[in-house]
């Protein structure tokens, strides 16, 4: 039954691939969406069965066949459903389905076969993602891991005619490779040390060990896995690909680069909670990296002018939050944030997509404004998303983010808490800057359609014409997601608010970490007073951020420019994303280029080619010598044969 969950999208992929030029557009979209919906239904049923089982031993394992079998190295192609993966598949299939539906309208202007290609990729991605989260062991997960990487590459570069898009795709692919290498190394290390690649067995073995006080094997494994995670989940130092990935179609950004794929790293850590729990240093590294990423990305996000880039950096920053949570051992909180974030970030992306769609490809905030009246649905849903992410009490983001901050504080990482708090301020600020710039004030007209991606033929001149709001296929997913962003948080109302942390208890079996008992206990009977206080603080921070944004971008719109004028250095630094790309280019890319040049013209051209040609030369020489033997006279051959016979017989006679 589990096998059907990834299988259905793959089937959709197959159909859309081979039917690309035969099927009508409607059919293609319908097939893709149906495949996702079916997968969603199956997932729901599967999860239903799962929850039917006793709480502490919830899991469904399906072994399809032995994939690799050599001596004691047995890798089954097995799928495993446990609370954690249950949550993931629900997110992937559910939100994935909505985004598919959204895409049917969003991509409608593509050529039919391009349209088919898009949905084929999308389905393929969904299939791999589900394989990733359902994998019972590292290798199956790795297949999904690489698969989603491939799909992300394909989809970022979907408009490959655009050089930028193609480059962005390549960038994403290469940066991910760096992480993947570490990931593979980690898996190999784990296997060589503990002789297994199965999550459960590995965690079981390691759970038996004491937590490493010094940096040991487990720490090494954890660190390598974490590096892999940073690659996939865009953390410092490998986050640089995600902003560029915005060159892809917006629904793709929503699905892959906000809701699902980028959270794979978080999922990986959650999946191996035990391993990480046994490597305190690595946990600290995770926490610090996460926090730093959150702050850094948030800071950059504040000054970006491309609506999607703002969201991209916001995503990076939110992912940073998740890693921070993981780092302080608040695995549940991290996963919880992953869950809520999937909703409102997908919502925000789709909303921005609706805006872009309405503006016929305009992405620059400075050319928007006043869309509130013209795009009501988009506006309100977007607003809900913004509120949710800002952490205003009562919505999803509030609960999850607050949970993280509280855990951090209670875990004794006050410094990280401070940074996190500042980041949440930034979050609130840039989100509402975005909202106000895009929807409020009056329209700042765009220079007429130019610089649009070829994929967006100008539907109509955006001057003064009435902009069309999101069509049904786009509006419905927006609304659904908006609802989700509101209610998702109530799955895990903290005990402090008299809630009964349903999700936490649901995830407990997957994320239960014996070694962290202490921390959890501490967190649990930490007085709820503190929790309340922290909540108040963070809510005020959120409101402060909103207020600041409102002040700067509704009342005194001159101040931002003044600030820019006052601190041009800082501004430029942030706008240029801290020159990180330039830095990498100088430190990594150029040297490698130079090196390969050298290798090409020295080693390759001389040594290798020389060897090959030399061999050929030798063969020719010997051939021209030996061919003399080939007299072409049958008799000679016969005589030589007989000569050999005489020799052989003679030898046997003498010996």
């Amino acid at each position, binding site marked *: 039954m589990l096998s059907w969950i990834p299988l259905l999208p793959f089937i959709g992929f197959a159909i859309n691939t081979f039917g690309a030029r035969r099927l009508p557009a409607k059919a293609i979209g319908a097939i893709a969406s149906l495949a996702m919906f079916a997968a969603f239904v199956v997932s729901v049923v599967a999860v239903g069965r799962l929850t039917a089982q006793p709480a502490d031993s919830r899991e469904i394992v399906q072994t399809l066949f032995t994939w690799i079998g050599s001596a004691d190295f047995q890798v089954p192609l097995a799928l495993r459903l446990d609370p954690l993966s249950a949550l993931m598949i629900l997110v992937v299939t559910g939100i994935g389905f909505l985004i598919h539906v959204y895409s049917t309208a969003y991509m409608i202007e593509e050529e039919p076969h391009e349209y088919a290609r898009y949905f084929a990729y999308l389905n393929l991605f969904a299939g791999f993602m589900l394989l990733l989260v359902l994998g019972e062991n590292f290798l199956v997960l790795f297949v999904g891991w690489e698969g989603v990487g491939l799909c992300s590459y394909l989809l970022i570069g979907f408009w490959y005619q655009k050089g930028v898009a193609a480059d962005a795709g390549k960038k994403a692919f290469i940066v991910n490779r760096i992480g993947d290498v570490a990931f593979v190394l980690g898996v190999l290390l784990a296997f060589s040390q503990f002789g297994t690649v199965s999550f459960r067995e590995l965690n079981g073995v390691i759970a038996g060990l004491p937590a490493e006080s010094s940096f040991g094997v487990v720490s090494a494994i954890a660190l390598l896995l974490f590096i892999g995670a940073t690659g996939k989940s865009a953390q410092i130092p490998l986050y640089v690909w995600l902003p560029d990935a915005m060159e892809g179609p917006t629904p793709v950004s929503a699905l892959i680069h906000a809701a699902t794929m980028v959270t794979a790293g978080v999922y990986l850590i959650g999946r191996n909670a035990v391993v990480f729990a046994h490597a305190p240093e690595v946990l600290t590294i995770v926490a610090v990296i996460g926090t730093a990423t959150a702050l850094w990305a948030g800071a950059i996000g504040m000054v970006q002018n491309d609506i999607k880039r703002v969201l991209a950096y916001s995503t990076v920053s939110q992912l940073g939050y998740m890693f921070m949570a993981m780092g302080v051992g608040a695995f549940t909180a991290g996963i919880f944030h992953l869950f809520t974030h999937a909703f409102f970030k997908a919502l925000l992306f789709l909303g921005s997509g609706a805006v872009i769609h309405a503006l016929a490809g305009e992405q620059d905030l400075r050319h928007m404004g006043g869309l509130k009246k013209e795009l009501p649905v988009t506006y309100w849903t977007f607003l809900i998303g913004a509120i949710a992410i800002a952490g205003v009490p009562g919505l999803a983001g509030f609960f999850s983010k607050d949970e993280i901050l509280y855990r951090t504080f209670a875990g004794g990482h006050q410094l990280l808490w401070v940074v996190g708090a500042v980041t949440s301020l930034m979050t609130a600020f840039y989100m509402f800057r975005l909202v106000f710039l895009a929807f409020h004030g009056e329209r700042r007209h765009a220079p007429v359609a130019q610089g649009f991606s070829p994929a967006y033929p100008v539907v109509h001149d955006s001057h003064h014409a009435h902009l069309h709001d999101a069509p049904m296929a786009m509006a419905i997913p927006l609304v659904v997601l908006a609802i989700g962003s509101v209610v998702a948080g109530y799955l895990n109302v903290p005990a402090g608010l008299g809630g009964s942390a349903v999700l936490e208890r649901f995830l407990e079996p997957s994320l239960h970490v014996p070694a962290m008992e202490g921390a959890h206990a501490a967190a649990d009977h930490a007085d709820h007073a503190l929790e309340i206080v922290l909540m108040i603080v963070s809510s005020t921070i959120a409101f402060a951020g909103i207020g600041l944004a409102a002040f700067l971008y509704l009342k005194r719109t001159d101040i931002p420019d003044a600030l820019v004028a006052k601190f041009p250095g800082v501004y430029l630094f942030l706008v240029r994303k801290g020159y990180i790309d330039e830095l990498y280019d100088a430190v990594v890319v150029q040297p490698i280029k130079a090196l390969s040049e050298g290798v090409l013209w020295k080693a390759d051209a001389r040594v290798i080619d020389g060897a090959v040609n030399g061999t050929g030369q030798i063969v020719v020489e010997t051939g021209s010598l030996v*061919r003399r033997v*080939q007299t*072409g*006279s049958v008799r000679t051959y016969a*005589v030589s044969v*007989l000569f050999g016979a005489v020799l052989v017989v003679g030898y046997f006679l003498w010996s």
Partner: protein
Amino acid sequence: MAELNHYLVLSGVLFTIGTAGVLLRRNVITVLLSLEVMLNAVNLSFIAFGRFLGSSDGQIIVFFVITVAAAEAAVGLALVIALFRHVETLNPDAFRQLRG
């Protein structure tokens, strides 16, 4: 009664005759015939050994030899015909086109 050696000597003689034929004749067909002679000499020793060691393997191997001989004759003669069409002779020394 005849001893094994009688047969072995006979087979040796036949084999030598065949060898000489292969090496000395100027007619491809005769050469092929000499080849058959050699094969038969070997067959004879096979059967003699089989009979004097009391096993039927000798005879069975001879079947295979005969089969292979048939195949060889078919292909060989086909080649002879094909060659004869090109160079109007059967002298093996005339077939020199495959000189290296």
